[in-house]
């Protein structure tokens, strides 16, 4: 193992850097969107808890990322540790000092990467919140986020974005242009979604969710308006995320942001509309919360390859996401006994993996280098998410659960997270029921 400096990306002209900076400032809207969606899809008696948890994990993620996260992730052109295999260097972890020491926070590409990642890691941390809704303790959400922001996220982000071995698959093995994930279908969404799967397995279902025969009960979200408003906020944020990511990590010219914004919008539109139709056909009426999930799944799927898709391809990518998401949500709940109140696994994990695959199937991302190996590069990235990120995330959270129980006490579930953990509800002027009808 040796210390090396990865090939540096082209430096950004000042105007391009300014455009990129402004686009990155849109990204927090995606976090606002996800927080509103999580809150609306949860129950009224846990609404304040959901929003406070969103704020807390965003704060923890930002601080932990600055302390250690960027040290592991780094940026292309910065120092990294490499393995030499067959005479080729494979970057596996960055070698930056803690606390961003020695990094000038100006309009340089590395500084813009830090800013984008500061927001993105918070976004990834918000995803598991929706799968642990109504039963995940506030302290445990923060501790779990620290593990995500300090370990899981930066490791994969270095491989995909920081000049690591996945990004080098093109140069080292001739696999297209290497693993392509401009806006983070894998590095943000699938990492968050697979962490959500780990959390649902560790926390287990909410009380009353499944009958003795294993049949799921409907525990609908408490505010569809918040959920649908969240979708609109997320749309704004995703345009910034996909555009900023493509400029910084894929080196596309800033003029391409128009194409990226068009493709992001088309993906979300096609996915949302397809889910409306699918739920209309299945249930007789469109389902608002599933359709919202469809919209977000389209955004998630657009992230990896929005810079390389033709608009018609974006509609296909979104359409497929819109069909797959409600079906996977059904399978998870009815067949696999997974209680995921916000649909994080189907939306972010499955949608993210589909977005990565779509880069190989429906874009010209690998065309300049010969597209033959692009599908293999994408497959290797997806295999890394399933084969390393999922076990790592589960293992870390399992250890955390042993040291500090993540699930709230039995009484907390009956009272609701607001009263039990915060001492006051989100809607004090309304009568919010606990689970007094459930046997204790």
């Amino acid at each position, binding site marked *: 193992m040796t210390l090396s400096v990865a090939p540096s990306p082209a430096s950004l002209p000042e105007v391009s850097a300014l455009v990129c900076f402004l686009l990155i400032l849109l990204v927090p809207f995606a976090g606002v969107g996800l927080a509103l969606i999580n809150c609306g899809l949860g129950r009224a008696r846990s609404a304040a808890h959901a929003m406070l948890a969103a704020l807390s994990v965003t704060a923890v993620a930002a601080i932990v990322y600055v302390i250690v996260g960027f040290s592991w992730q780094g940026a292309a052109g910065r120092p990294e540790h490499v393995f030499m295999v067959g005479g080729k260097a*494979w970057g596996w972890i960055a070698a930056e000092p803690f606390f961003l020491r020695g990094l000038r926070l100006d309009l340089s590409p590395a500084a813009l990467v830090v800013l984008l990642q500061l927001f993105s890691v918070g976004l990834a941390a918000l995803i598991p919140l929706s799968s642990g809704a109504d039963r995940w303790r506030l302290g445990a959400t923060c501790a779990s986020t620290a593990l995500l922001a300090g370990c899981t996220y930066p490791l994969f982000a270095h491989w995909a974005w920081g000049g690591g071995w996945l990004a080098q698959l093109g140069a080292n093995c001739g696999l297209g242009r290497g693993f392509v994930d401009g806006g983070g279908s894998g590095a943000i969404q699938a990492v968050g979604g697979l962490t959500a799967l780990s959390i649902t397995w560790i926390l287990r*279902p909410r009380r009353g969710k499944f009958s003795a025969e294993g049949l799921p009960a409907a525990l609908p979200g408490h505010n569809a308006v918040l959920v649908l408003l969240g979708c609109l906020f997320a749309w704004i944020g995703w345009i910034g995320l996909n555009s900023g990511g493509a400029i910084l990590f894929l080196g596309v010219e800033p003029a391409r942001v128009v194409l990226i914004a068009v493709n992001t919008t088309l993906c979300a539109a096609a996915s949302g509309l397809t889910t409306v139709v699918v739920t209309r056909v299945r249930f007789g009426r469109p389902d608002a919360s599933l359709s919202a999930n469809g919209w977000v799944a389209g955004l998630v799927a657009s992230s990896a390859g929005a810079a390389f898709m033709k608009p018609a391809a974006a509609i296909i990518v979104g359409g497929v996401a819109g069909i797959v998401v409600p079906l996977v949500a059904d399978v998870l709940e009815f067949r*696999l006994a997974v209680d995921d109140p916000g649909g994080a696994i189907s939306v972010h994990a499955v949608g993210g993996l589909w977005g990565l695959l779509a880069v190989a199937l429906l874009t010209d991302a690998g065309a300049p280098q010969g597209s*033959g190996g692009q599908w293999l590069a994408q*497959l*290797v990235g997806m*295999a890394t998410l*399933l084969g390393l990120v999922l076990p790592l995330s589960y293992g870390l959270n399992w250890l955390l659960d042993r040291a500090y129980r993540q699930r709230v006490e039995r009484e907390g579930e009956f009272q609701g997270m607001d009263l039990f953990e915060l001492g006051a509800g989100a809607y004090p002027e309304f009568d919010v029921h606990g689970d007094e009808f459930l046997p204790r």
Partner: protein
Amino acid sequence: MKLAAFLLLVAGWAIVVSAVALLPSAGPRAAFVLAGVAVELLGLGLAVRSHLVLEAEGE
């Protein structure tokens, strides 16, 4: 059972990484990557199954 499932997931990933790093020609490399992914899917299936068994025991 869950431990075996996660070991299978990691083993599948190890096959994928080894194929990419060690095999120079495209055909065998793609075949081994696909084999690694298949092992991962087996691991994922086993993890899901072990969760179902735990839930049934919990009930």
